[in-house]
């Protein structure tokens, strides 16, 4: 029997699931290899035990915790799909103010559906077997992680920083244009896509396993930037002290 896989989403934009659907050239082969049993965006129906659950989005409501635990119980492997599930992603920005203050500001009232807590990564509530970082994920990395899990070996992510890929692409250092870049501490694996597109690294893939802060601080000082500025930048996609980043 083909391995059964499912896709689930919580608080997020569904861009990571879309990136899976965007694997047009590989999709038919993928269908030969695994059975997509749950994928609310494109399939009606659900149920049963799963070999792999790919879960997108952050958790920020009690009912979401319950739903996540149910998915965990019936899945042999659970994978955090994308930044929101892995590090809280762009939802991390909401942690800068309290949910009460934001709710009052945006909706101006209280109803049960609006009762949220600060967006958190999946690993705060359940065991996560593997993670695919990025906002959105890179389709090729999804395929690599899927392949590893199907073959029963632990998926590996690059352990080096984005600067490696940026240098290989022969791009000028972003700091040279006087802009902040999170490349030195961010996990590689995106092939420096944003930098190739003329943007800086905003750190959507989370921190490398052992970031070295001393040399980084030196780069910042050399470029006249403060730790506060860098933290502000870091908070766009990451919650400080959260997740396994």
């Amino acid at each position, binding site marked *: 029997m083909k391995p059964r896989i499912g896709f689930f*989403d*919580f*608080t*997020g*934009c*569904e*861009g*990571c*699931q*879309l*990136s899976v*659907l*965007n694997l*047009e*050239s590989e*999709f*038919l082969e993928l*269908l030969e290899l695994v059975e*997509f049993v749950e*994928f*609310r*965006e*494109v*399939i*009606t*129906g659900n149920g049963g035990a799963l070999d792999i659950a790919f879960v997108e989005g952050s958790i*920020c*409501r009690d009912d*979401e915790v319950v739903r996540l635990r149910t998915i965990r119980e019936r899945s042999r492997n659970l994978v955090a799909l994308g930044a929101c599930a892995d590090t809280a*992603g*762009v*939802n991390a*920005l*909401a942690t*800068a*103010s309290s*949910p009460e*203050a*934001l*709710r009052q*500001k*945006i*909706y*101006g*009232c209280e*109803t049960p*559906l*609006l009762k*949220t807590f600060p*967006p958190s990564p999946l690993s705060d509530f359940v065991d996560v077997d593997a993670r695919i970082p990025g*906002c*959105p994920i890179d389709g090729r990395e999804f395929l690599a992680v899927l392949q590893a899990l199907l073959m029963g070996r632990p998926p590996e992510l690059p352990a080096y920083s984005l600067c490696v890929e940026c240098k290989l692409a022969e791009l000028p250092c972003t700091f040279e244009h006087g802009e902040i870049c999170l490349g030195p501490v961010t996990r590689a694996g995106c092939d420096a*896509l*944003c930098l*190739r*597109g*003329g*943007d800086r690294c*905003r750190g959507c893939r989370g921190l490398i396993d052992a970031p070295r802060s001393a040399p980084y601080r030196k780069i910042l000082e050399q470029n006249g930037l403060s730790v506060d500025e860098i933290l502000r930048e870091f908070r*766009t996609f990451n919650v400080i002290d959260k997740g396994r980043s």
Partner: protein
Amino acid sequence: MKIEVRHLTRIEGHAHLIVDLDAGEVRDCRLEVVESPRFFEGMLVGRHINDVAAIVARICGVCSNSHTLVSLAASEAAMGIEISNQTKRLRRLLAYGEILQSHLLQLYFMAIPDYLGVNSILPLAKTRRDLVSRALRLKKMANTLCQCIGGRAVHPVTLRPGGFATLPTPAALQAVRKEMVAALPDLEATVDLFLSLPVHPFERETEYFSLAPESGYPLFGEQLISSDGVDLPVQDFRDGVKEYLVPHSTAKFARLTRNEFMVGPLARYKNGAARLSPMAKQVSKALGLTLETVNPYHALRARLVEVVHCVEEAIHLIDETLINGLSDETPAFDIKEGRGCAAVEAPRGTLFHCYEYDESGCIIKADCIIPTGQNLGNIEADLRALVPQLLELPREEMTLRLEALVRAYDPCISCSTHLLKIDFV
């Protein structure tokens, strides 16, 4: 009898469809939007103009390009930044790519299964491989266009206030053009497919709202119009569109002249069909779409007409871009305080962003109005009118019809719960 479809599938985001019937009388009928709110407008406060577009793109994976485009336009309006004709052409190409991406995903992956009696098109990979391959080819064509201009299909990276950080190469544009021309037979087959699918009977006239077709079929623009005679500059849209909160939803509803109105492909079609491309006009005729239609199920066919329009227009626009040549322009502008609003026709309808900046170029206040939020009231009104007409049908059939109606609007719940702001009364 109670019909309850929890976590309605093949739509973007989380919503429950609830219909409560008592002896043939509709007691309750609602689309419960249960997705967690994300407070983007609050999150934007204090962020610099150079960060805003990258953050708001994350409101929605399916329409990240539309959010990026309207965000840049609003920021540029706030600071009085002019953009070049080259930038206008490239942004327009990206807007076409966005509509193609979203419409093709909706038509093939979300809508068609309802009419082919399957729960998804994925199981058809064996029995209808031609159809599934065609769907994937068309989707790829749309993604190639977005990737070429924006650097990535979801959450673009090349766009900046004032212009672009990097430009597509002529070779990349030519390759996209080739793929789009090659897609024409696939589009023909898609039209044939839709001609073979039934359009469920149902009529309910409503108010149809979109950008005015001043400079072509509604896409970008400064003026808004509706079938009830609304004629409003985008800067003043708050005078027309009024949002309100309902207890069963984390998305806000909205009203215009009447209690509810429609945005999206069918509204644009009714307001701007005269400005469709020649091929799109032919397809619209072949599909039997007319200006008189008031059947919301027709939104599917209007979506297909727009797909053809966008492909034809994009091919011409790529030619125009190549003839004019691409030159490096460094976007430069002065940071100043100001307020600006902009609108764009996103795949699901008119999308508004409004920003207020302080003198250091950071957001003081952000306000975003999402197409799906504008459509929610209309969807519920349709459901209330439709349910009594379906009482003869078996329950399962009735549920399918109602689900298909909701899907015809292609609601995008992630969007609608993530950017809502209320003026409390």
